[in-house]
């Protein structure tokens, strides 16, 4: 029997596969396609201190083997998420991870505090890497000092393990990973989208109303694998890997690179059953490549 379960700080996962933040709303829609209790965990859409409407439309565009999005952190605010959304997910008895965003360190702290009171929420994912808002987000994600600072502040107020979500829009991913580990992060989430743009030839302007958007999907995978592989050599906290995963083979590639669990984003749009399909295939793929458990494969792609 191939063992799929994974133990991470705060997270007791029956399998390593969870939907990525922002690509799954708060689970309601996908719950019409399959039973959410099949999932290893659920990462919710970003929560900010107050409700946000986000950017103007168009908010998405297609790119070769990927897509751009500039949703702009639209969400009803942490309080409403806790009141209206978490209870729905709690029914499925699946660990919930809250994605925490903000424009200022104070806002991150405020949101983190709010989730102290949400029982089903087992961990925070600190989104310091959203490229689609004018303030906060990405700034924290490209400056190791700011990243460390917000990590420390959130750790100080939250009783939950904190996974810091890193941005690929950076030269030195290792420096960033080390900085947030030193600041007390319990884990890393890698990677968020890389900033891109598409220009509408007819309209003669950027296709997205926000001009730039975050590129996700299969095109991103080589960048994600590289960054996880590099970070894995320098930090010892667990890594939730993501970026272009659409098959169980992709999951194994992330495990070999050093991820301890994975998240699936864009693939949900292509195939609403992407997560359960991947979970179903994973044991066979692990077996095929000679592994008896998920944990067995973690980091095994590093040259000896």
């Amino acid at each position, binding site marked *: 029997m191939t063992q799929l379960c994974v133990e991470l700080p705060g997270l007791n996962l029956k399998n390593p596969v969870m939907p990525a933040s922002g690509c799954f709303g708060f689970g309601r829609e996908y719950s019409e396609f399959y039973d959410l209790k099949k999932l290893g965990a659920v990462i919710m859409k970003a929560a900010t201190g107050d409700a946000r409407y986000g950017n103007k439309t168009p908010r998405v565009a*297609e790119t070769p083997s990927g897509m751009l999005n500039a949703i702009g952190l639209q969400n009803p605010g942490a309080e409403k998420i806790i009141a209206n959304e978490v209870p729905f997910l709690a029914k499925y008895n699946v660990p919930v991870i809250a994605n925490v965003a903000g424009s200022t360190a104070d806002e991150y702290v405020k949101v983190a505090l709010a989730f102290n009171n949400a029982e089903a929420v087992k961990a925070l994912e600190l989104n310091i890497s959203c490229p689609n808002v004018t303030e906060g987000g990405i700034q924290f994600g490209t400056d190791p000092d700011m990243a460390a600072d917000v990590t420390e502040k959130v750790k100080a107020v939250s009783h939950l393990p904190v996974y810091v979500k890193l941005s690929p829009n950076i030269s030195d991913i290792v420096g960033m990973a080390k900085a947030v580990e030193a600041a007390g992060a319990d884990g890393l989430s890698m990677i968020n989208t890389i900033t891109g743009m598409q220009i509408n030839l007819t309209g003669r302007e950027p296709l997205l109303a926000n001009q730039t958007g975050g590129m996700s999907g299969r095109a991103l995978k080589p960048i994600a694998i590289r960054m996880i592989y590099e970070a894995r050599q320098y930090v010892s906290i667990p890594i939730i890997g993501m970026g272009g995963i659409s098959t169980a083979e992709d999951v194994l590639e992330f495990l070999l690179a050093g991820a301890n669990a994975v998240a699936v984003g864009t693939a949900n749009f292509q195939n609403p059953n992407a997560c359960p399909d991947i979970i179903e295939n994973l044991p066979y793929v692990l077996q095929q490549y000679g592994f008896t458990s998920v944990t067995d494969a973690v980091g095994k792609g590093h040259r000896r």
Partner: protein
Amino acid sequence: MKKCTEMIVTSVREIALDIFEMSLANEYIATAAVPGQFLHLFVDGHTLRRPISIAEVARDKGTITILFKRIGDGTKRLASLEAGMSVSAIGPAGNGFTYKTSMSSALLVGGGIGIPPLYCLGKELRHSGIHVKAILGFQTENQVFYEEKFQELGKTYIVTDDGSYGYQGLVTDVLDQSGKFDHYFSCGPIPMLQSVINKLGDQSGTISLEERLGCGIGACFACVIPSDTEGGYRKICSDGPVFAANEVVL
């Protein structure tokens, strides 16, 4: 449970310049679909699915028909499918048209690829004994499609931008001629919808909207439109694509 299911292409043909009519077989979708809903179709080699409205439902045959314009890579690929091939669809997606069966006459105002869902609706209205009139706008003569089919439903006015066929101008230019009606239904480009709504003032009406979609099921917030309702917005893919004319801010 919502479905992501395989549909089998039963026929495909070009009915006007770059306009394709495709029939797809799937028992479940043909049974469940109502006018105004759409299919979110997977196209090989593409990350995002393509939303296409349901233009006709043949419950008895277990098929539905879609009409689409070949404008980019996705619709080009779709148009290259042949009978017997299969295509993955999420659907029927979105909410269809609702209306009072008590009304006696309806006006359909469609522009370009906004026309297909109105045909589906028109057929159903006629079936319920409601009188139907239609104003259909096209860019130019060789893009005109389904004129006769609409004529079978009721008086139909064709308008082309360049006057190469029917009336010259915009759909709003013939609104006056179309006489009285209880309710209007409109689908087409945003500027067209805006002028229809402006022109028809406080006539009760229903519109169907388009936007670039991500998930197509309400999970990603790609397709929101401002509204005065709770939350301040509506999602086109799951709250719509059909809205009351005064429900959203265009």
